[in-house]
Each structure stands twice: as C-alpha cells, then as structure tokens.
C-alpha cells in the first residue's frame, strides 16, 4: 500500500512539471468554415481569451479548413494526435447529422468534449406582416390545407430542418420545406413574403425585431434574450431544438491536458469582457462544461439518428 502511495505521489509530482509546461507550442483551433462566419468569429474570440487564461505566453491559432458543410474540419480534428495541440470548433447538430446522411470518418465518440459556449434555440417565426399572430393559428392553417404553409430553412439536414420536422411531428401538421443557402437567405425570403414561416435560430431574429414576429422558442425555458416569447412547450408542443457551438479535441486526450484546457475554458467563460464581446456578436452564451457537453452531444446524436431513420432527407 505504501509503495502504491509512493508511486502515486511520484507520478503526481512528476505530473506537475508536465502540467506547467503545457502548452509548449502553439495550439491550433480548426474551424470547418470560412474566415468571417459565425463559428469562425466565435473561435477567434475564444482563442484570444484562451491565450490569456492559459498564460505563459501561450499562443492559440485559428485555422480555417472550409468545405463539405464543415465535414473536412471535423474529420481533421477527429484524426489529429490527441496531444491538446489540435482542437476544433464543434457545431451541433450539424456535425453529427453529417454522419447520418453520408459517409463520414468520425462519429460522436471521436472527440474529447471540452466546453460548449453557444446554445441558440430555434424558433417558429413569421413576418410582421403575416396573417398568423400565434403558433396555433399557423398550425391550424397548415392542418386545414396540408402543405400549404411553406417553411424557409437554412439547409436540409441542419437544426432548422430538424426543428420543422419535430414541430410537424408534435402537431400533426404538414409543411412544405424550402431549403435555402444559409439562414440569412431564408430570412430574406421570409421578409419578402416568398415563404410563409421559418424555424431560424433566435439570434437570427434579434436584429429584425420590428420586421419578424417570433411565435415560439423551441427550448425548455424562455430565452433571456426574448423573455416575451413563449416556448413551444408552454403552448402544448414539447419540441426542443437548438444550434450549439463549442470546442472539442480528438478522442483519447490525456486527462491532464484536457483538464488544463477545460479549466482554462471555464475561466474564459467567467471573463466579463468575453461575455460582453460574445453578446456584441449576437451569440447567446449557454456555457456547458466538458461532461455536460458530451451528454448533450450523445442525446443530439440519438435525436438526429431517429429523425434520419424516420424522415430521411436524401
């Protein structure tokens, strides 16, 4: 017993210098989208504050590897050496939806989940000039004339799409789904009256408060950004869908390294200036530590898998 304790003590002692040394070279955060996108801007903001929290002149670099809806970047992270020097942004449910509808060289188990920063709930939204004032009015019309209500989405196989499918499921209504190229295009079609409704994320609606009417937020509780808007659950439809953005590393990271990173990311989140910058960029922060993030990812994986089984989109 004494020997074991001594051995433990020695490893613990020898671990200390190793800990103090990490990071001894620049850390890379891989972003699967182009520079200047929402995820990229989040990554750069996190990188800036992470450098400060890691201390010791640590340097954190953002590397863009755009392509295939983020898949190229996610794959790169999953296959990197788990030494803590290659991290990546992780978008849910998008990253895991990609593993269902096409061949992917990673799955939910391929990552070490470090921290989630953004949780942006989906909504059901119409234009301010729309005849529909409440969710029930919209759904009643969709039931009366199945398919007559068009929903503008940012893409198929994304959270907008899943939100619309889950709403249809919960209400028994039938919608016509129109996948645009990106949320802003869907929003413009909604503003121009080319589609009747949308399921875009709440952050996409905040700058258009006078132009859009948000009928419901698809989250467990009302959002602090729009406390005036009811949740779908309150209105009798138990639908939760959101877009999450966090930081992951490859699976198999040593607990020392992932511990250092997780602690630093927790400290980043506590930084007031960080909170202010993120809010200025329109990012609804909902911090989740590594373990919670992993659980969210697993449950999202199941939801997306079930949706793909039931209503495959291609």
């Amino acid at each position, binding site marked *: 017993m004494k020997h074991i304790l001594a051995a433990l003590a020695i490893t613990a002692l020898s671990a200390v210098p190793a800990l103090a040394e990490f990071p001894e070279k620049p850390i890379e955060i891989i972003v699967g989208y*182009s*520079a*200047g*996108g*929402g995820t*990229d*801007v989040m990554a*750069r903001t996190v990188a*800036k504050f992470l450098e400060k929290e890691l201390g010791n002149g640590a340097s954190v670099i*953002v*590397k*863009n*590897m*755009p*392509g*295939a*809806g983020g*898949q*190229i970047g996610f*794959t790169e992270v999953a296959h990197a050496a788990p030494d803590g020097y290659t991290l990546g942004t992780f978008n849910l449910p998008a990253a895991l939806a990609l593993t269902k*509808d*096409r*061949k992917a060289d990673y799955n939910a188990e391929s990552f070490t989940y470090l921290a989630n920063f953004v949780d942006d709930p989906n909504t059901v939204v119409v234009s301010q000039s729309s005849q529909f004032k409440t969710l029930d009015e919209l759904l009643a019309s969709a039931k009366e004339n199945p*398919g007559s209500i*068009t929903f503008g989405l940012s*893409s*198929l*196989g994304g959270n907008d799409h899943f939100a619309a499918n889950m709403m249809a499921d919960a209400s028994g209504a039938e919608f*016509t*789904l*129109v*996948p*645009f*190229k*990106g949320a*802003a*295009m869907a*929003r*413009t*079609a909604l*503003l*121009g*009256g*080319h*589609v009747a409704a949308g399921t875009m994320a709440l952050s*996409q609606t*905040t*700058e*258009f*408060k*006078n*132009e859009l009417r948000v009928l419901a937020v698809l989250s467990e509780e009302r959002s602090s950004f729009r406390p005036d808007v009811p949740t779908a659950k309150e209105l009798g439809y138990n639908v939760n869908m959101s877009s999450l953005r966090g930081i992951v590393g490859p699976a198999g990271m040593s607990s020392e390294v992932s511990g250092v990173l997780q602690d630093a990311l927790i400290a980043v989140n506590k930084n007031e200036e960080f909170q202010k*910058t993120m809010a*200025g*960029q*329109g990012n609804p922060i909902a911090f989740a530590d590594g373990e919670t993030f992993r659980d969210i990812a697993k449950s999202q994986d199941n939801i997306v898998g079930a949706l793909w089984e039931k209503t495959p*989109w*291609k």
Partner: protein
Amino acid sequence: MYSELLHALPEVLTFANFMAVIVGVVAGIVVGAMPGLSATMAISVLVPFTFGMSPLVALGLMAGIYNGAMYGGAIPAVLLRIPGTPAAVATTFDGYPMAQKGQGGFALQVAVVSSSIGGIASAIALMVLAPPLSRVTLLFGPSEVFWVAIFGLASIIFLLGGNPVKGLISACFGVFVSVIGSDPIFGNDRFTFGQLEMLDGINIVILLVGLYALPPVIDLLEVPLKTDGVNGSKLGTEPIWRALPRMKRFWKTWIRSSIIGIWIGILPGAGGSMAAFMSYNEARRASRTPDTWGNGEPEGVAAAETANNADTASALIPALTLGIPGTAVAAVMLGGLLIHGLQPGPMLFRENPDIVFGFMWQFLFGAILLVLLGGSLATNSFARLLNLPRPLLGSVIIVLMLIGVYSIHGRMFDVYLMLLFGAIGYVMDKLKFPLPPVVLGLILGGFAEENLRLALRIGRGDWSILFANVTSLVIVALTVAVIVGPMIKRLLSKDGKTAEGN
C-alpha cells in the same frame, strides 16, 4: 439619416482612418493585378488581423481593397489577356485587342476612370438609397432570381464568337462544371467521385485561373525570345488629363453600366462578373458600331470596368440591411463587421451610425482615390511589367497562380484541379473554343438551377409559380425582347432592302 451621414464624416477624415483607405486601395490594385489573388482572398487574410484594429481602420482597409482589386483585375486583363479577378473577364474582350494595337495605356486609363466612376455611383447609392434599395431586394424571391439568371444566360448568344457551335459547347461545359458538387436542395453528390473537396462544387477562381491564365502563360513560354507584340514602349501612355477628353463620349455607357452594376449588386448571390458581362452586352447592343466590339473598342472596356466597380458598394446594401451578401467579397466583409460587434440588420444603422456611415464614406473615398493612385500606379509601374523577359514574366505568373489557388482553401487538391482546367483551357484555346461562355455557364448555371428548384418547391411542383407576379413577368418580357429583338430588326431591314429593290 442625412445628418448622421455628415456626422460620421469628421471621424473618417482622421489620419489613421484615411490612411487605411489609401493603403487598402494600393494593396487592392496590387492583389487584383496578380492572377490568382482576388479581393475575396485578400480580405479573408485581413479579417483575423482586424481584431486588434479600431473598426474604421479595419473597414477602411476592406473598402479600399475591394475598390482597388476590382480595377487591378483589369491590368493583366488588358496587358496579357489574363483577368486578374473573375470580374475582369469582360475587360479582356476589348482591352487586350487595344493593347495589341498599341493602345494599352489608353485602355488602362479608360479602365481606371470607369472603375472610379462606377465605384462613386455605387457608393452614393449605398449612402442615400440603402433602405429603399433593400426593399427592392425583397421583391426578388427564387422565381424572380431564376429569371434574372435566364436573362443573363440569354446574353451568352453575344459571347459565342465566330462559331456558334463551339460557343455553345463551351457554354455547356461551363454549365456542366456548375453541376459538380452536392446538389443545392437535397445535398446528393454529383460527379464528386467521393472526394470531400468536390462537395462544395468548383470554386470559380480555380476554373478561371486554370482556364484563363495558364494558356497565355504557356504562350509566353512557347516563344521565349519573341520580342514583338506588346511592350512598354508601345503602350501609348500619355498623362491622364490629356486622355480624359477622349473619354467624354462614354458618358451614356458610364450611366447605363453604373445602374446595371448597382442593380446586380443588390441581387443576392450574383456578383461582379455577371454585372460586367451584362453591362458589356447592353453597351454593345446600344452601340452604333457593334462590329468594332471585340476588336479593341475602348467603350467595351469602359462598360465592363464601370459595372464591376458599381456593384462593390451596392453589394453591401443587402449585406448590411438583410445579412445577405451580394458578392463573395461582401460575405467576407460581413465577418469583419461581426468581429467588431456590428451585426447586419435594420438595427445596425440605428445602433452604430458613425461606423456604418463612416464605412460608406470610405467606399466613396476609395473610389475617388482610385483615379489618383491607380492612374499613376498602373501606367507608370505595372505596365512596365511587360518589359520583363518573357520566361521571367511567365514563371512569376505561374508561381502567383499556384499560391493564389492554394490559399483559397489551403489544399493541394485545388492546385491539381486548376492545372487540369489549365490543360483543358490550352486545348480549347488551340482549337479556338471561346472561353467566356464557360465562365458565364458556370456562374449562371448553378444560380439558375438552385433558384428554379427553390421556386418549384415553394410552388409545390406547380410551374405557374414562375409567372405568378409582376416582377417575374417584367424580367421574362425583357429576356424575350433581348432574344427576339435582334431577329425582328434583321427581318425588318431585309424587308426594307427587298422593297427598295422592287
């Protein structure tokens, strides 16, 4: 609103903010002039650095680069028949023949003055008309945009060159390339051969660099000791103030092309190359001497260059008010705005008037500075490039091409793809297949397909949705007029001749 516009002015004129525009314009001209390096790329590289800058310095650099690059692309287009940016393809049509006739200097001066005029018109549109023009954008849903694409495709007729069959084959090749990648609605793979790199389709810059830049470079190297052709001493440069009076007759083209450029800019997803093509065609249609076009007509350079600068600031109208960038460059700029906490939308103008209106001023100053900086830079230094020994010039361009294409996504795959297109371009060049229809087919083919399918989804498979409103019908009528008009004209003139004969 106009008082806010004036209120933003003093801040723009501070030393650092104004210098940013100057540096941006110069950098933009240089980047635009290098085949393979585009404004989109330059601004993406810049975006991360803007973190530490004050907002107006960052935005001033971007506005300057955008304006400068749109003109810079004309320099190699005129001198070497290599468009420096996708938007400069139409500039090669008359610019290069002018250079061969020894009027390269004048062609560049026409280009810089026209670019500047287009840029100024666009900046003014952004400053005073942004809110009303953003309502015009809202009128264009998928079915309307589909018809705009068809209108653009109809103009391919004028780009076919001497041999319509070869021209149509070129156009079909372009449309085929637009099909590669995941399909725009369901995301099914098309001709990707399982390559992740192909899923997003073929980036226009990769095709353009391969197709347009490689064959002329091979040409340069095939006859390394050839000394005739264009050279610096034969450029025909003269002070810009002496060249200006000769441009007075372009005023109609300047106005028409500015309007076309601004209009294309506010349409989501169209972009500078489409603006330049359309404005070139319209100017040629309006010309009394359409036969001189394509053989060194300075007005052709004016038309193309006015339009590709006229869509710069106007592309920011939908970008700032609706969050939808009108061009790839505007998309990257949105990221630069986001970094400084400026989120697009109607609130932006109310929450940060000083920065937004300051940014607009910077666009205006960028466009004005273009004449001063571009005028001297282009004629005095860049044009001298042609005095370089041909093997040296050729190898420098190849290196630039490789770097530029690699830097788009940071992968070698794109470089190989570019070389493949280069081989195709070389063969097409030797067999006299025209290249412009390929570019137009690629841009508009994908654009038309995506919007047609979105429109049909909205209409639940009912084709009548395509004719369901006035905006669509107006564009359909215009398209028909463009195609049928010249035929009727020709018939009428034939009738007239036979009547006289009788």
